[in-house]
């Protein structure tokens, strides 16, 4: 099944050990191996990718920084040429869509992918560059000398491995970052729980239903009644001959309301406009994953003596634009560049590794995370953004489009009255102002 050699653990010493073969870890591995470092990636799954899950889209530009022209060789599903945003009420949908032929030509903008296949491929690239990929191996603890990380303890017999530096790319559950004292754990208000199904549809049927030219793909984000008043979104991505459909909700609010993520997904699938797209499709896989949506404020300390953190483990997700994997790729690359620089200096002290944080601060990652740092708490405290506003939008459009005996002026008047009855002008202005402040 796996094309990755499962190299038995020896007492070899590495320049760097990376925990986790996801986008962050594999990006770091490619960069380090390119720089001539002796690097091992330790992955608990049977193959790199077997534990990984996302929506999911990969974005071309950041991915190409790690794997140039990856679209010529990586296992991709479809290049996305149309993105849609839906506001739903249960019966109705108000949609905004953007479509471009630009997105259908090299270098493309984004692709739908399956992590399990894509990461297996990316691991192959890292291995070809000289990285050692060790699978089926769980890192249980960090080896410490005082406050310095000097290696990892794996679940294998005599499974201690030493290295000058360890890069934690362990994903959203930061078991090791907590042990290293860098993370205090992730709070449910900073997490979204996403559940997803992969549904099989014959290629022609899929392209007909989604109104796509051959090979092109569409990605839909859906807000409204489907999450039952809990802040969150639904999503639909087209793959080659499957559709990925899922729902993500803020964990804290889901727990408080004892809502069930799978029930929300069923409700989403049952919405008539969604049902029309997926009707008769047979399910192939069910998956669940947490997304760290704490943004800038939710981030752990990013480095210590002999240790760095990248990707989901570092909380690097832009929840507004559903970007995570690209931030993981970029942060993994930056962590690796810092390690290469540290190897030149011969120092792996926190003060040397601080270069990573400085580079991140200058990068698109921190700029975006800072811009949207208040979004998740804002949405939790404004649940009506997910219920009332989609309903008002739907009611307003319906009123304007329904031809009856009312004049258009009367209709505008009616709409304003309706909005005011739901949300007094003062509160409406405050929502607009707060929203604008939070999202810009």
């Amino acid at each position, binding site marked *: 099944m796996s094309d990755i050699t499962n190299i038995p653990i020896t007492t070899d010493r590495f320049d760097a050990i990376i925990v986790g073969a996801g986008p962050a870890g594999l990006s770091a591995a490619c960069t380090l191996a390119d720089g001539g470092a002796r690097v091992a990636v330790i992955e608990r799954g049977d193959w790199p990718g077997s534990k990984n899950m996302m929506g999911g889209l990969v974005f071309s530009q950041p991915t190409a920084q790690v794997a140039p022209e990856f679209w010529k060789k990586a296992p991709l599903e479809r290049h996305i040429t149309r993105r849609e945003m839906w506001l739903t009420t249960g019966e109705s949908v108000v949609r905004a869509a953007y479509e471009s032929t630009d997105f259908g030509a090299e270098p493309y903008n984004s692709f739908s992918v*399956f992590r*399990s296949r894509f990461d297996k491929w990316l691991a192959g690239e890292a291995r070809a560059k000289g990285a050692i990929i060790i699978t*089926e191996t769980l890192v249980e603890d960090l080896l410490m000398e005082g406050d310095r990380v000097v290696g990892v303890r794996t679940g294998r017999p005599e499974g201690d491995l030493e290295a000058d530096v360890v890069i934690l790319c362990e994903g959203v559950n930061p078991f090791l970052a907590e042990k290293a004292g860098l993370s205090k754990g992730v*709070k449910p208000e900073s997490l979204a729980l996403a559940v997803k199904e992969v549904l099989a549809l014959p290629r022609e049927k899929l392209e007909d239903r989604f109104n796509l030219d051959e090979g092109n793909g569409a990605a839909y984000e859906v807000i409204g009644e489907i999450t039952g008043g809990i802040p969150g979104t639904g999503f639909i991505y087209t793959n080659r001959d499957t559709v990925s459909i899922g729902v993500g909700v803020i964990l804290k609010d889901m*727990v408080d309301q004892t809502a069930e993520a799978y029930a929300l997904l*069923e409700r989403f699938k049952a919405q008539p406009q969604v049902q029309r797209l997926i009707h*008769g499709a047979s*399910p192939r896989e069910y998956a669940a994953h947490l997304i760290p949506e704490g943004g800038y404020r939710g981030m752990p300390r990013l480095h210590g003596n002999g240790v760095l953190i990248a990707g989901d483990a570092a909380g690097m997700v832009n929840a507004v634009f559903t970007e995570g994997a690209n931030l993981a790729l970029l942060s993994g690359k930056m962590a690796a560049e810092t390690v290469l620089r540290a190897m030149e200096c011969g120092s792996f002290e926190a003060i040397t590794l601080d270069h990573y944080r400085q580079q991140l601060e200058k990068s698109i990652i921190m700029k975006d995370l800072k811009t949207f740092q208040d979004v998740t708490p804002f949405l939790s405290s404004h649940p009506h953004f997910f219920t009332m506003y989609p309903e008002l939008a739907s009611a307003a459009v319906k009123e304007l489009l329904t031809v009856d005996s009312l004049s258009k002026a009367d209709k505008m008047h009616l709409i304003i009255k309706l909005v005011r009855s739901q949300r007094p002008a003062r509160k409406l202005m405050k929502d607009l102002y707060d929203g604008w402040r939070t999202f810009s």
Partner: protein
Amino acid sequence: MSDDRRNRLPSDDRDWTPSKLSVTDKLGLTKFKPDAEPHLSVKDKEVCQATCRRKYCTHTCPAQVYRWEEEEESISIAYEGCLECGTCRSGGCPYDNIEMSYPRGGYGVQYRFG
């Protein structure tokens, strides 16, 4: 307990009307390589019995791993179907009463799509 909950494999000639897809059906689609030893446990049974009235984990776990057994007055754990998302350790149990680790290397969920 876990056998009849997990081993019902769906077939393609079934009625896949969405509302009929139970969590058991969903988990039947996903591939697992279960470890012999559980990686999930309840820290203190009394918290489940006396403090937790809503049995949160039975709702919050996306794989319905946790079930309240009335007769035994305890939570049963079908860890074999765990999707390893981490919900139970990060607020899915508001009393922080579930101990979660990852299964040993090579065991647990194996996403073919992911």
